[in-house]
């Protein structure tokens, strides 16, 4: 409601989940329900993006897209030396974490969209495509960093995992279906995929809170460096996104969403891909940082900050 505080009630469900975990409630969301909720969210976001793309001339967006992907690819390249030399993490762990932060979080992005809805701000719908496009360079760079001079890479397996891993596959599949079917074709599906979206997101956040509660302990084990990284890295990436969005002439909402994309870290697609491609990396480190720290930071503090940044940039810059 108030522009000042930009608070979105849906994040309370995350808090409910974290508390259930910390207080050792017997609340559990069955694994199959978690899978179903994530399939729903990925497809719904994909469809929404595809419908938006159907409204634009895609060709005109190619140059913007290239810029965004190239700038996004900087994120893992910046993160890696920080983790490796400042944090003294192993090569594999540094590369894997860098890939997680170069990738994006669909749920953080979704919370960003609901926040825009509440602030009554528009955004460029085609930005959803970057949920797919930003994953690919991030994961590939992650593997190159891990393997540089260090034994062979199973590229076939990795690329298969990147493109046909379920997250990317469902997002991309939803994009294509939304694009082909167009707004009228998708309209009878709106009752399920769009009207229920926010409620399903609430349930998903409840579950993520339960999982995050288990990860917070992990993070404690790995100490202050990683916790600091998990807060400062998104701030850096968000600044990169804000500037890029403003230079590309995006709206305030679009600039904010680009910052959110850059700032968010993956905890669904990247863990699965890294487990296959860089198995010697410790998944507890990367998931602990991205889900136990960056995700809650983003949805509670990050998003309001990024929105303020986008507004400031547009007020001062334009």
């Amino acid at each position: 409601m108030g522009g000042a505080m930009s608070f979105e009630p849906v994040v309370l469900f995350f808090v409910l989940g974290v508390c259930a975990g910390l207080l050792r409630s017997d609340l559990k969301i069955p694994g199959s329900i978690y899978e179903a909720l994530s399939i729903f969210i990925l497809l719904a976001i994909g469809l929404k993006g595809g419908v938006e793309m159907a409204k634009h001339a895609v060709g005109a967006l190619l140059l913007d897209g290239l810029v965004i992907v190239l700038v996004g690819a900087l994120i893992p390249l910046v993160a890696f030396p920080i983790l490796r030399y400042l944090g003294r993490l192993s090569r594999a762990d540094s590369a894997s974490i860098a890939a997680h932060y170069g990738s994006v979080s669909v749920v953080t992005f979704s919370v960003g969209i609901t926040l825009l809805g509440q602030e009554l701000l528009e955004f460029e719908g085609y930005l959803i495509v970057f949920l797919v496009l930003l994953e690919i360079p991030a994961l590939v760079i992650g593997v190159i960093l891990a393997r540089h001079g260090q034994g062979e890479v199973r590229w076939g397996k990795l690329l298969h995992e990147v493109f046909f891993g379920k997250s990317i596959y469902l997002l991309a599949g939803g994009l294509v279906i939304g694009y082909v079917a167009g707004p009228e074709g998708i309209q009878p599906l709106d009752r399920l995929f769009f009207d229920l979206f926010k409620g399903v997101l609430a349930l998903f956040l409840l579950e993520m809170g339960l999982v995050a509660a288990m990860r917070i302990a992990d993070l404690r084990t790995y100490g202050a460096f990683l916790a600091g990284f998990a807060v400062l890295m998104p701030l850096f990436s968000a600044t990169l996104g804000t500037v890029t969005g403003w230079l590309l002439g995006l709206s305030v909402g679009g600039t904010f969403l680009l910052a959110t994309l850059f700032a968010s870290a993956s905890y669904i697609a990247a863990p699965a891909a890294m487990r296959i491609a860089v198995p010697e990396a410790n998944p507890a480190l990367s998931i602990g940082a991205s889900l136990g720290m960056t995700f809650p930071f983003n949805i509670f503090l990050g998003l309001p900050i990024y929105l303020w940044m986008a507004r400031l940039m547009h007020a001062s810059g334009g």
Partner: protein
Amino acid sequence: MPAQAKLLTILTEAVLEDDVVELIMAQGAEGYTISEARGRGAHGLRSGKWSAGANIRIEVVGDAELCARIAERLQSDYGRDYGLLMFTTPVEVQG
């Protein structure tokens, strides 16, 4: 299948399912059975909450030599980097 056989039980990460199954069949097993599992071991808590944190329990019935071969291959391919526990029991196949 001869009446006297071995049961090889494999507890490992769910992300390995396709690879492990391929390896089992490639070694000449007649079949396998999978069920979902969760647990705790040297690689920490695996709560079964999402696929990256879930285990599977694979059972293969076959002769001792087959079971040993499968176990050896799995250990060398995945033992270092993945959660993996394997054990065999003698069984009497019925029917």
